[in-house]
């Protein structure tokens, strides 16, 4: 017997854990093995074994698995009711604690490397842009405001406005990533590669790691947006996405001040 109740819209909601059957979900399994193929195996095939065919095969297995798993996971998250509602809003800040420590170890590495050399920046470092990072800061801070507005709209039940402001946020994020791509392209053209010197490895690892967070934040927003087009929204999920986005924003302030303006 499964316990059922209905939402205001009349769609059935399953209660997790209340029922007398074993709960299952295929989503976590699919995502894990998608990640397993896409990251460790694809990386190893390319960088360790230089095997192009297997690289493509493993990536080709991994990516669809992840997309399928994530879609399934989101679908379940929108239809099932958790044991205690809203706990993800606490889980996300706890996750961010561990994120902070990843960034801290990269920054600590940077400080250790920089403070133990006599001249900085090291040889072969081209002139770093000044205006571009300022513009990128503007983009991110604005996007933090727009996602906040989106949340407000959702709080007032205005789904159309919520979607609009979320789209605007995603556009700002995409603009940020385009700036990153442009800047990387420019630096690589001037032979400033990750392996060039002590600054390049720090620069690419910290900004790259941050950019990957922007990418993840955008993916979360798109994962919220797609079901929202059909009118399905989970407020806790939106809250988590927005907390994460604000975190990515705050980290960028540290990245900019440490990497570009010190």
């Amino acid at each position, binding site marked *: 017997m499964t316990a059922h109740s209905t939402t205001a819209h009349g769609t059935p909601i399953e209660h997790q854990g209340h029922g007398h059957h074993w709960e299952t979900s295929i989503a976590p399994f699919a995502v894990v093995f998608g990640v397993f193929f896409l990251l460790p195996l694809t*990386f190893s095939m390319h960088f360790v074994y230089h095997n192009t065919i297997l690289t493509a095969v493993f990536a080709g297995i991994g990516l669809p698995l992840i997309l399928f798993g994530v879609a399934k996971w989101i679908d379940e998250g929108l239809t099932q009711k958790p044991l205690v509602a809203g706990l993800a809003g606490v*889980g996300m800040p706890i996750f961010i604690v561990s994120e902070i420590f*990843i960034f801290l170890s990269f920054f600590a590495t940077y400080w250790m490397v920089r403070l133990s050399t006599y001249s900085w920046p090291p040889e072969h470092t081209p002139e770093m842009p000044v205006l571009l990072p300022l513009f990128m800061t503007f983009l991110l801070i604005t996007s933090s405001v727009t996602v906040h507005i989106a949340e407000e709209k959702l709080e007032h039940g205005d789904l159309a406005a919520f979607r609009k402001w979320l789209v605007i946020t995603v556009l700002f994020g995409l603009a940020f990533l385009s700036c990153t791509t442009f800047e990387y392209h420019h630096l690589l053209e001037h032979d400033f590669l990750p392996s060039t010197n002590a600054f390049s490895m720090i620069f690419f690892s910290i900004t790259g790691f941050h950019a990957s967070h922007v990418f993840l934040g955008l993916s979360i927003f798109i994962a919220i947006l797609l079901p929202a087009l059909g009118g399905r929204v989970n407020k806790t999920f939106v809250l988590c996405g927005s907390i994460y986005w604000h975190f990515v924003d705050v980290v960028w302030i540290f990245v900019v001040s440490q990497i570009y303006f010190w």
Partner: protein
Amino acid sequence: MSDAHHGFNLREWIFTTDHKRIGILYLIGALSAFAIAGTFAIMIRMQQYGPGMQVFDSGSGYNTALYFHGAAMILVFLIPALTGFFANYFLPLMIGAKDVAFPRINAFSVWLFYAAIILALVSLVIPDPPDVMWTGYPPYSVTTEGNTAFYVFTVHLLGFSSILGAINFLVTVIYMRAPGMGWNQLNMFVWTILAAFILQLIFIPVLASAVTMLLFDKYLGTHFFDPAMGGDVLLYQNLFWFYSHPAVYVILLPAIGILFDVIATMGKNRIFNYKVCVYAGIGGVLALAGEVWIHHLYVAGVPDWIRVGMMITTLLISVPIGLMLMSLWGTLYKASITFNVAMHYASACLFLLLIGGLTGIPLAMTVMTANLGQTSFVHAHFHFVMALFSTFAIISGIYYWFPKMTGRLAEGKLAVVAFWFNIIGVNITFWPLFIIGVQGMPRRYFSYEQFPQFAPYHHVATYGSFLVALGMVLTLINWIKSAFWGVKSEANPWHSKSLEWTHTPNPPGPGNFPHDVTVSADWTPYDYVK
């Protein structure tokens, strides 16, 4: 009782999001890793039997064995058994929760753990296996022909799994305790798991970044650990031990937590100094865990002020651990003890932790470590704490909760005989290493032609390890036999007051509790003496 499906359904196990089944999945993975890494331990011991090549063809074969033994025992057996299996199965039951806060993320964690196992096993059969021990120190790990990437990714997968586990269990304990359950009414095991996950959450990311830099250095040509190009080779050791010393407490604390639950229940007694133990003991370890790592780098060339500072913190951290050990002994005071198999192992643990702890004190001192640091004295010390104490605590916990998981008892002659093989075997194996360690037997070497005088001690140690292997095999046989054909257990065989025994059937069905659980203000899980 539940009207769940009876019989075995593979699909329901693989895609399960139930915390008990996920716990069992962790147990299967962890014990498999224990068996394989244990086999490597025996091979390492056989190689050390005499000087020269004994079982391996080359030093690099020996290095791979060391890599797999160390990495698998710590990262795939000890940590997942304690924070994966025990935490998953028993923590929600102890606090009266129907499941963890995020069941799907829990399933995600366990399959990340299995992905790591697969990667670790694959790394044994590829032509260029990792040979970087479990530490992966550069520059060797960057210049070696071995596949350091698989080492890095194994750490990544396990680390991510643990971080998600940490989020899950922190939220579960904070928000999903049964109505009425205050913080001072938690099982000691719940407290220690909470502390272990706080450590995992904060420190794993640092290890993850360290091995990521290793990956970049080896495969993308960066110079994080290359002093010639402005990097810093000690940076890796700092980042690595910044996690890996607290990892010792990630293992030690839950092991102590299991012992508290076993000893208090079997002794029908209160926890001696519960609040001191929780707030000063566990709290003290939490406060100091991140400020001791330099004692792994005493001879690596760090400034004296850091060495002396961290020597003091290292000595200091024995105080909270001593408090917990005293509480364990104090819990035995005026107890009426049922000396079952779990209690056999628990009392052995009290002895093993004492030896392991006391031999750690000289190693905390910079002057002693300068001489002892690279000898088998260290080897014996950390095996007493990590391998023997923690493993015995795990075995004790499995015996204690065996009826909960299977509805059957695993007691009996076979279990006791296996126990004596184990406890005698481990002492025969590791005491000789203390002795020759003091005399200068270097650790990590695949051969010791320069020191033929140590061969007799190695003979003894190797024979001791055979005894342990026998004891472990018998233990495993006993568990498998008992799980299927053992004596049926009554509902609460140890007459415990803890929720997992009083409010759920053996084994618990979906949703755990037939009726919602509430506890009164004067209830505690150790409510034996009024």
